[in-house]
């Protein structure tokens, strides 16, 4: 048990009749980068609020660094950093004032732990006198992360830090997380972006308050049970509908400029070319591919329904 930073066992939470999460269990090892992957309404935020002691579970038990989330909430608050989904800083305080404020609350100073936040804070330091409310999305995110880190937490909880953030800032953010992990911090991060799952050591895929799957991202991909192909033709719009008419079809989904096509059994190149040519498609490209997390997530969603 000593190797674990976070343990959550059979935890459920209802809001009135609404079951936000149901029998959630998972464990996060020390210094792991753990991802909670799922769309809005899958229960990610409820899990964070329970682990950060802001919400009581209806049933089940959870511990953070050995402390119980109900009994030992004070101890947990001292050792956790939490970046909630909504921008949590004071808009009418400056960048520096916000940081100062969070440092003071935790009984420390900016100087004492500056080393930990330096790489991140240095990027917004030129704007330290600007009001937090006037920052751009990417800068707000860096400030919020700095504030969550200023007391040198053992565990960092990040609730959708990259939602609404552009592709470039998202990449930079994940580079920052990898660096923080190297400083020995355990990180639990949630995201609706499926591509970010691959950047985690381990992930829990969540949908409607339940866990669809838990594993290392590579293993989740290996468990995908169908042959999967990438298909292109000159008429991408009809291609999805036509592939859905194929006798062995499991699914056909658009992925950027290609279609991912899953089938019951292996499909021969000639067979699919003939099938699509009969339907009027030209310039057909067809090849087998390995699935990504989004393929797996959609397959698991379907099984669940």
């Amino acid at each position, binding site marked *: 048990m000593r190797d674990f930073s976070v343990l959550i066992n059979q935890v459920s939470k209802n809001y009135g009749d609404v079951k936000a999460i149901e029998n959630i269990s998972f464990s996060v090892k020390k210094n792991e980068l753990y991802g909670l992957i*799922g*769309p*809005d*309404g*899958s229960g990610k935020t409820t899990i964070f609020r329970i682990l950060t002691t802001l919400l009581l579970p209806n049933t089940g038990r959870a511990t953070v660094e050995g402390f119980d989330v109900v009994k030992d909430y004070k101890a947990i608050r001292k050792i956790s950093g939490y970046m909630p989904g909504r921008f949590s800083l004071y808009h009418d305080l400056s960048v520096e004032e916000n940081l100062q404020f969070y440092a003071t609350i935790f009984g420390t100073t900016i100087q004492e732990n500056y080393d930990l936040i330096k790489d991140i804070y240095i990027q917004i330091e030129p704007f330290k006198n600007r009001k937090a409310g006037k920052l*751009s*999305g*990417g*800068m707000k995110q860096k400030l919020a992360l700095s504030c969550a880190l200023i007391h040198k937490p053992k565990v960092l909880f990040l609730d*959708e830090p990259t*939602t*609404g*953030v*552009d*592709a*470039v*800032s*998202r*990449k930079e953010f994940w580079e920052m997380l990898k660096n923080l992990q190297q400083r020995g911090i355990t990180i639990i991060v949630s995201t*609706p*972006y*499926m591509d970010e799952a691959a950047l985690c050591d381990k992930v829990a895929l969540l*949908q409607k308050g339940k866990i669809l799957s838990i594993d290392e991202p590579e293993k989740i991909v290996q468990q995908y049970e169908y042959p999967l192909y990438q298909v292109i033709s000159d008429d991408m*719009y009809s291609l999805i509908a036509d592939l859905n008419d194929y006798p062995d079809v499991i699914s056909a*989904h*658009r*992925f*950027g*400029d290609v279609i991912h096509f899953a089938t019951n059994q292996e499909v021969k190149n000639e067979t699919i070319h003939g099938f699509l040519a009969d339907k009027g498609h030209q310039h057909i490209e067809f090849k087998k591919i390995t699935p990504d997390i*989004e393929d797996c*997530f*959609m397959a698991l*969603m*379907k099984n669940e329904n």
Partner: protein
Amino acid sequence: MKTNSENIIIKVENLVKKFGDFVANDNLCFNVDEGEIFGFLGANGAGKTTAIKILCGLSAPTSGNVEVAGYDVYKQTEKVKKNIGYMSQKFSLYENLTIKENIRFFAGIYGLSGNVIKERMNELLESLQITHLKDTLISSLPLGWKQKLAFSIAIFHKPKIVFLDEPTGGVDPITRRQFWNMIYETARSGITVFVTTHYMDEAEYCDRVSIMVDGRIDALDTPSVLKKTYDAKNMDEVFLKLARG
């Protein structure tokens, strides 16, 4: 691609918007064609929101000519507003009104008559297969449903253009694709779709894509030409190359 001027639905010439010394939109020039799906991409803070506010008639440019649906954004803002629809992830529907009430409310704002509202509402409820849910509060619907409904309501008054500001944020991957099917159908019906997104795979679904960097449009073309121009295997790479400089 249609380029003759009769089919241009959004015309932007030398658009500049300044806030004090800060140049949020730096001489933007682009056209959007009727029935096109136009992807409007850019990093946070690049100036997208400023430009969208101008195109929606909510903010006047500092200089430049901008026409939306044939109307001038300086003088004819009310006409602009009547001819567009708008939906974003942040603002969509009133949570404490029912589906029916939301439809009636938004349709009423756009001045549709009671009979037209009734008729179109029935069509809409049927096509989304939610007739039985019409008296349900929006707050009790799953997000995916809300977003699909919000989109349908944004085009309920049959605008010439619909602006979608990050419409699919946080939506599950299957619903996200269903949402894009609705976008295709809308464009096929002749309504122009102007859409922003942070999902780079969605950039591939647009007819043309513009990418804003520091207040300027640094690239504008079809996804396939952009990929060739920037020697990139997907739009994610194009975006990274441009936005990281």
